[in-house]
């Protein structure tokens, strides 16, 4: 794996010039679509991802509904042109797994008991992929839920941490994801001190996982502030319009 690929320059900087604990530039905008009840757009490095929320609405067919709470439906999807090689638009096994993992990461945040027998649809479309799309997509999807006015226990921000060339680093780009030794996506809410998404593949010792986890927590705390700012911006604009 990756012997011939230089993930670090001679001065110890990463391939895109960042330090080990430095996030890529992030731009977030809430309320970007007209039809969806809630929507959000995120750019993280060269990732470009849109999330949209429809609902709560009547769950049809009726047998999918639950009498005591709403259900969530989630689709993570990559556009055919989002990657170097064209990706078939049909959902891959990876996308099916990630749709489930992301639903599991969002479900504990939603006050589902307030909307029995309904469904909330969450769509995450990756328009351009550059590593860490599930995390960036989740960061945007939470904001789309908030934008739709759905009561949440809190937000989560998500960020991949991992290991490349023996170094623990934050917010892996595509190159580091492909040729690094480990990749660990984490979604975290600082006020509830809760992780809602946790995956890891690659090889790390216990100490390295711990170190990566603490980097993830610092990074997601920074991103949490950006999320709150993006929501403020969205709703302060609305206030002026009234």
């Amino acid at each position, binding site marked *: 794996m990756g012997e011939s690929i230089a993930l670090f320059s001679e001065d110890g900087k990463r391939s895109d010039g960042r330090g080990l604990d430095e996030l890529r530039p992030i731009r977030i905008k809430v309320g970007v679509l007209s039809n969806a009840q809630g929507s959000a757009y995120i750019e993280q490095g060269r990732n470009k991802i849109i999330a949209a929320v429809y609902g709560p609405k009547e769950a049809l067919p009726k047998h999918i509904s639950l009498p005591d709470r709403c259900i969530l*439906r989630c689709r993570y999807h990559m556009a055919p042109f989002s990657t170097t090689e064209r990706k078939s638009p049909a959902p891959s*096994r990876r996308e099916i797994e990630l749709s489930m993992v992301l639903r599991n990461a969002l479900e504990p945040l939603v006050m589902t008991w307030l909307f029995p027998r309904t469904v909330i649809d969450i769509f995450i479309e990756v328009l351009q992929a550059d590593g860490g799309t599930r995390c960036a997509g989740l960061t945007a999807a939470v904001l789309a839920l908030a934008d739709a006015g759905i009561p949440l226990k809190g937000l989560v921000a998500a960020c991949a941490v991992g290991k490349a060339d023996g170094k623990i680093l934050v917010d892996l780009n595509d190159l580091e994801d492909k040729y690094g030794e480990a990749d660990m996506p984490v979604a975290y*809410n600082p006020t509830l001190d*809760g992780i809602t998404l946790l995956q890891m593949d*690659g090889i790390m010792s216990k100490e390295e996982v*711990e170190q990566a986890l603490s980097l993830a927590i610092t990074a997601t705390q920074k991103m949490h502030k950006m999320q709150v700012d993006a929501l403020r911006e969205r709703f302060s604009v609305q206030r002026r319009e009234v």
Partner: protein
Amino acid sequence: MSITEQRPVISKLEQQELRRLLAENKRIDGRNPLQYRNISVQLGYVEKAEGSALVELGNTKVLAAVKVGIAVPFADTPNEGILIVNAELVPLASPVFEPGPPSEESISLSRYVDRSIRESKSIDLSSLCIVPGRSVYSLYVDLYILDYDGNLIDASVIASVNALGITKMPKYVVEGQAIKKTDEYFKLDLKDHPVSLTYAFLDDKYVVDPCLSEEYASDFTVSMTVKADDRFCAIQKNGGGMISPRRVIELLERSLELGKELRTVAYRQLAGGNG
């Protein structure tokens, strides 16, 4: 689209009982919270497969079988053999398994097992190349879930590793443009013996190796795969709920403790085991 799963109803009484017992560090089947069920491994269960193992973890039964063939390598890895893990949640195993295309549960299970084997580097895929860019070995690991009483992940990792541990590779010879199968075999070199440990969380308590009712009553599960050298090669939280970072670190420690013992029991029959 991934949709909120509708778990079979388990009675309020049973849920309460599970939690009441757990408050006293007991479980419904008499185990302590950090105890695995009995594990039995039957190697070579399917003679037509190049390697196979039937694993029973309590009442959970998983059959893993390895079929070996040759294939054209993927364009981005012309010198590497192909490893594919597939899980079938066979309808006879449980009323909640339905025939049809693979469910997200089965996809997630096979992808986790795949990661456990691939990322642990248990198999040196570059040693499975016959003619670079043209012909490599393909290893299909098919998991057949025959009886479902919780914790498919750990049972499936144990079954796969055991099956791969006894896999006989047919020898191929290159004759000009043709590649011919010979009658000779060599043993697949299994470099690691990874084990997965799955924890189910009920409120603020957790149990290892959940049985089905514990799985249904739980808020979420966390699985961790540990290599023989005590490093981790896969982690996954499944289901909703939140876990604190402190708890994750606690599970890492637990997995190192419990992993050693589990590895010894699960791979006892594999000769020359490094576990």
